C-alpha cells in the first residue's frame, strides 16, 4: 500500500507537468506495488491452502490486483502509460478501503460463498463497482482535459489524453455497463437468495444503500440520454457517485446484518 501511495503522490507531480510523455517512474512504482501485492496474495493463498477470495477484504484486493494487472499490460504501450497518473489515486483509495476494519473476517473451513447465486450476486456487484471506478477515472481525465481546453492551457494540446468527446463516450459506456451489472446483481440478490430466518430485505441498510446507488446512476444515465446533460456535469456526476460509493460502502456493510 505504501508503494501505491508513493505512486499516487508521484501522480500529483505528473498532473502538474501535463501528460506529455508516458512516465516510466510511475509505471515502475506500480509494477513494484503489483509484485508485492501478488506475493502477499500468494502467501495468503498458500497459508490457507485455497484461492484467497473468501471474504470482502480478499475480494476487494483481488479486484484491485486485476485492475493493476490490466494497467500494467495496457502500460506496455508507451502512449497509454500516462493512464497510471489517473489510476494510481484510485488504486490507493481502493486499497485503503480494503484495509478498513471489519472486512477481513475470519472464515471457517468452507468458503462463505458456498451458494452459486451468492457468488454470482457478489461477483456481479463487485464488477459493477469496478466499471464505475473505471468510468470515474475516465471522468477525471475528461475534467482535466476540459479544464485545460477551456482555459487555453498549452498542455491541452501537449498531453496524451484522448479527445473529450471520446472520453465522454467512454464514461457513458462504462457507466452503462456498471449499471447493467449492478442491476443484474441486485435482481439476483432479491429474487434467488434465501435469507436467514427473521431477517428481511426492507430493514437492511445495505439494501437501501444499494437502491440509492442504483437510482443515482440511473438518474445520471437518464439525464445524459434524455436531456443531453453531458460534458462537465456528467463527468462530475461520475466522479461524485463513485466517491460516494467508496466512502460509504464500508460503513453500510458493517451496519448490514445480511452482508456483514
Amino acid at each position: 500500500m505504501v508503494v501505491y501511495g508513493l505512486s499516487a503522490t508521484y501522480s500529483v507531480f505528473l498532473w502538474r507537468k501535463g501528460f506529455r510523455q508516458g512516465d516510466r517512474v510511475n509505471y515502475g512504482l506500480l509494477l513494484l506495488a503489483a509484485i508485492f501485492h501478488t506475493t502477499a496474495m500468494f502467501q495468503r493463498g498458500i497459508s490457507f491452502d485455497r484461492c484467497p477470495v473468501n471474504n470482502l477484504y480478499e475480494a476487494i484486493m483481488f479486484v484491485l490486483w486485476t485492475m493493476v494487472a490490466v494497467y500494467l499490460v495496457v502500460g506496455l504501450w508507451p502512449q497509454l502509460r500516462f493512464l497510471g497518473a489517473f489510476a494510481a489515486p484510485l488504486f490507493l483509495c481502493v486499497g485503503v478501503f480494503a484495509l478498513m476494519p471489519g472486512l477481513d473476517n475470519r472464515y471457517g473451513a468452507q468458503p462463505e460463498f458456498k451458494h452459486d447465486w451468492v457468488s454470482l450476486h457478489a461477483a456481479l456487484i463487485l464488477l459493477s463497482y469496478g466499471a464505475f471506478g473505471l468510468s470515474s477515472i475516465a471522468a477525471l481525465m475528461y475534467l482535466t482535459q476540459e479544464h485545460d481546453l477551456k482555459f487555453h492551457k498549452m498542455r491541452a494540446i501537449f498531453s496524451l489524453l484522448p479527445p473529450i468527446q471520446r472520453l465522454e463516450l467512454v464514461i457513458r459506456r462504462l457507466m452503462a455497463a456498471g449499471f447493467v451489472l449492478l442491476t443484474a446483481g441486485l435482481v439476483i440478490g432479491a429474487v434467488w437468495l434465501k435469507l436467514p430466518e427473521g431477517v428481511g430485505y426492507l430493514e437492511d441498510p445495505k439494501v437501501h444503500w444499494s437502491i440509492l446507488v442504483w437510482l443515482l446512476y440511473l438518474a445520471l444515465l437518464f439525464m445524459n440520454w434524455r436531456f443531453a446533460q453531458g460534458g462537465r456535469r456528467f463527468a462530475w456526476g461520475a466522479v461524485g457517485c463513485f466517491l460516494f460509493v467508496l466512502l460509504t460502502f464500508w460503513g453500510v456493510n458493517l451496519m448490514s446484518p445480511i452482508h456483514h
Partner: protein
Amino acid sequence: MPIVAIGLSHRTSPVEMRERFAFAEAKIPEALQTLRSRGVAEEAVILSTCNRVEIYAATDNTDRSIFEALQRFLVEARDYRGPLHEEIYKLSEPQSIEHLFKVACGLDSMVLGETEILGQLKKAYDLALRHKHTGGRLNKAFQRAFQVAKQIRTETNIQRGSVSVGSVAVELAEKIFTALQDRQVMVIGAGDTSEKTARALLSRGAQSILVSNRSYDRAGALARELGGRAVHFEEWAKEFERIDIVISSTAAPHYILDRARLEPLMKLRRNRPLLLIDIAVPRDIEPEVNFLENVYLYNIDDLQAIADDYLQQRREEIARCEAIIREKARALAGAEPPSHFTSGSRPVFGHE
C-alpha cells in the same frame, strides 16, 4: 570514401536565386548521370525543393578541388550566369553528414522541425537509388539520416505542435472531437486566415464547409474553392444546429455572436461540443460564451500564443537535437577511414 555536400538554401539565398538553381524532378537522373560520368563523384543524390538545392556526393577525390568541380557542375547544369558570393555552401565530413541529418530532422527548415522535408529527402534518395547513382557510402548515410530523424521525432519535442494558426486550430479540434471526419465547419466572413484554417481542417477530413459572408458572391466563390456551400449572411444561425466548428473573421465592428444568442442555439444542438475560432479584429464573438458548457472559444491571440509557445519549445529543443545529430554523425564518419579533408570547408551557417 568521404561524403561532401554543396548547395544553397533559404538561409543563404533569396527565392529568385533558388528558383534558378532548382532541378525539375524529371531532369535529376540525367544530371546525376552527368556528375558520375564526368568523374566528379562516384555516388550522388540531388535534393531540390523550394527551399534548397543540394548535392550530396561520395567521392574518392579528397582534394578541395572537388568543391570547385561540383560548383562548376551546378552552375553549368542550371546555366546560371549571375554573380556568386556566399550563397553556395560547401561542407565536408563531418559537417556534411551533420548537415544531412539536420535537413532530415527539419532543423534547417524555414519552419523549424517541419516534417515535409523528410519526405522530400526520401524521394530524392529513392530517385537516385532507382537509377543506381548511390552506393554503399551514400546508402548508409541516408538510411542513417532517416533513422536519426525518427529518433529525434520520438525522443525530442522538435516536431511536436503546430506553429501556424491554421494547424493549431486543427490540433484543438482533434482534442475536442473524436474524429474530424464527420464534423461540419462554418466559415463566417471570408478572409485569408479563415480560408487557410478551413483548408487545414478539410485536409484532416472535416466534412462539409458552409461559408457565410456579407457579400454572397464572395461567399459563393470561397465555398466553391473549398468544395462547400454558401449561406446568406442573415441565415447563418439557422444552420447552426448541425455545426461543430465555427471560424469567424468578419469585419463587423460589434459581436455577431453573443452569449444570449448562443445559449438557445446550444440547446438545439443538444449541447454537443462546439469549437469557436474567432480570428477577427475587432472580435466577432463575445468572450462570455466561453463560460457556456461545451463551448470552447479561441481568439486570434490565443491561437497565436499557442503557436508561439510551440515555436519557443522547438527552439529550446535544438540543443538536444544537435547533440544527438553530432554523436550519430561522428559515429558514421568514424566507421569510415579518415578523409584527408581538413575541416577547412567552412560551415556556412552561423547557427550550425
